């Protein structure tokens, strides 16, 4: 377990955020951690399941950043399916 910084973009938000996650976090948790800073804060919570998109591809909800090969400060988008 280790703290791991990513660049997070919540669907329809206006800014790219520095979001600290854990290397053990599955993408479902990563999505929640991104959403925490934007959903209901600046944009209404998205309806539907939140997925993580990396380099144009949706990642497995159970994958971690290590599994998915996301580097520190990789850009992850939280999008509603």
């Amino acid at each position, binding site marked *: 377990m280790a703290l791991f*910084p990513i*660049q997070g*973009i919540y669907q*329809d*938000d*206006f*800014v*790219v*955020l*520095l*979001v*600290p996650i854990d290397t053990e976090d599955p993408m479902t948790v990563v999505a929640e951690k991104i959403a*925490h*800073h934007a959903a*209901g*804060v*600046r*944009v*209404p919570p998205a309806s539907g399941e939140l997925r993580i998109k990396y380099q144009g591809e949706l990642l497995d909800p159970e994958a971690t950043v290590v599994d998915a090969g996301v*580097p520190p*400060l990789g*850009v992850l*988008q939280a999008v509603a399916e």
Partner: protein
Amino acid sequence: MPALRRSDWYDLARDLNWNLSYVTEDEAFPEVMSNNYGITPNEKWWGWDEPYKVSYREYVHNQHGKDASVYSVNSVIARSRMFEELDPGWKSAIVAHYGAIAVPEYLAGLGESRMGRFGRAAAWRNMALFGTLDETRHGQIQTYFPYTLLDKEPRMDWAHKALHTNEWGAIAARHLFDDMFTANDAVSTAIQLTFTFETGFTNLQFLGMAADAMEVGDLDFGALISSIQTDESRHAQQGEPTVKILVENGYADVAQRLVDHMFWRSWHVFALLTGLSMDYYTPLEHRSHSFKEFMQEWIVKQFLDQFRDFGLEPSWYWESHFLPELDWYHHALHLGVWFWRPTVWWNPDAGVSPAEREWLEEKYPGWNDTFGVYWDTIGDNLRRGEETKTLPETFPMVCNMCQIPVVTPAGFRAGKLESPEPQIHIHEGRQYVFCSEPCKWVFQLNPARFAGHTSVVDRFLGGEIQPPTIPGALEWMGLSPEEMGQDATNYAWAFEGFEAPGAAAS
């Protein structure tokens, strides 16, 4: 009265150029101080000629008169209640202005004095001497005036303090101005500071600001800015003759690159400061035009004229990036500055009351759909008494060129960008994050110049900010709780048309 007219002696007295014999040209004008871009011998620069001429005697006489006039206004107004009665948003605009501009004006004196020594023609060095004195005056006067208001607004001391802190906006200003003049050679400074930034942006901006100040009743700031603008319009003329020499000697591409580089950088900081002031901080009843209209009618038109007059082309990013950003970029920055308001030294005015939103929608059709929705959610939270939801718990990513938060998702949402993601660039194993293709392009022009700099986020991740929390970062930025920005109207805008402010807190 002088026995001779100025025109009878000016050129003779001014053009004290001579061929060097004791030292080489490179020794007298080292490239790091004065890049000739291949135009040698130095005689090729001696045709440099400024359009507006002034003698030292006239200069001193004029400046003395200006100072006597503007300090008199300040002395009288300091004893009045004028400042207290100004609109809160306007006060924010001038607190922000002084912090971002006063010390850089003084630093511009370094750039001017470098041109005063390393300018490649005597006429140029002569004009740069006046520029050095101008900028020294501007640094002093824009520190003195806010200091006379300290008893009414303690954060006026950020006029001197801001550039000596790690506050993010101050870092953005320092990074820009170091690139533009503090750490630039004389030839590039003439094109990037005086031609691009002063002639292109600030000279016109100061005209507009002076008019706006008078309109809102801020006679003090209006008199100050008018006085400064008259100096700017004189020393800014160093750019044109320098561009002409480059173009005449076949180096139009060099001039073009220097302009393109600094126009983009200036635009981003200009949007941050002036965009917010014009469209959100200036009281609605005193807005004569929107920021976009100002940009189109003044800045864009003048640059297109200049490009045409000097045989240059509109910058490569003009149509693809710059013009589209006029519709969305400063709106996103405003939202960010307001949301991260504890990180700035002024009180951001949300400027989104129902009447203001109507104005924004009229000036920027579609604003309600793209930006109003964010303010809807923020307003809902305030009305529910959930102020904590309107304050930051993390940082935005910051561009490794302009040092401004990365707001590409707003551009994507506005339909102006193809992706919400920032530009990523790897250089010698390090990842750099850019807010736009032109910011990345500026980096790639000269990586050695920019690669060593670390953004606020880089420093945070590198362990320089302790404790690594928002409060730790605010302390690192030099912001005490009393200095941190708050909403300028105590959230009154969120309750207009709903219920009385404060009701939600109960």
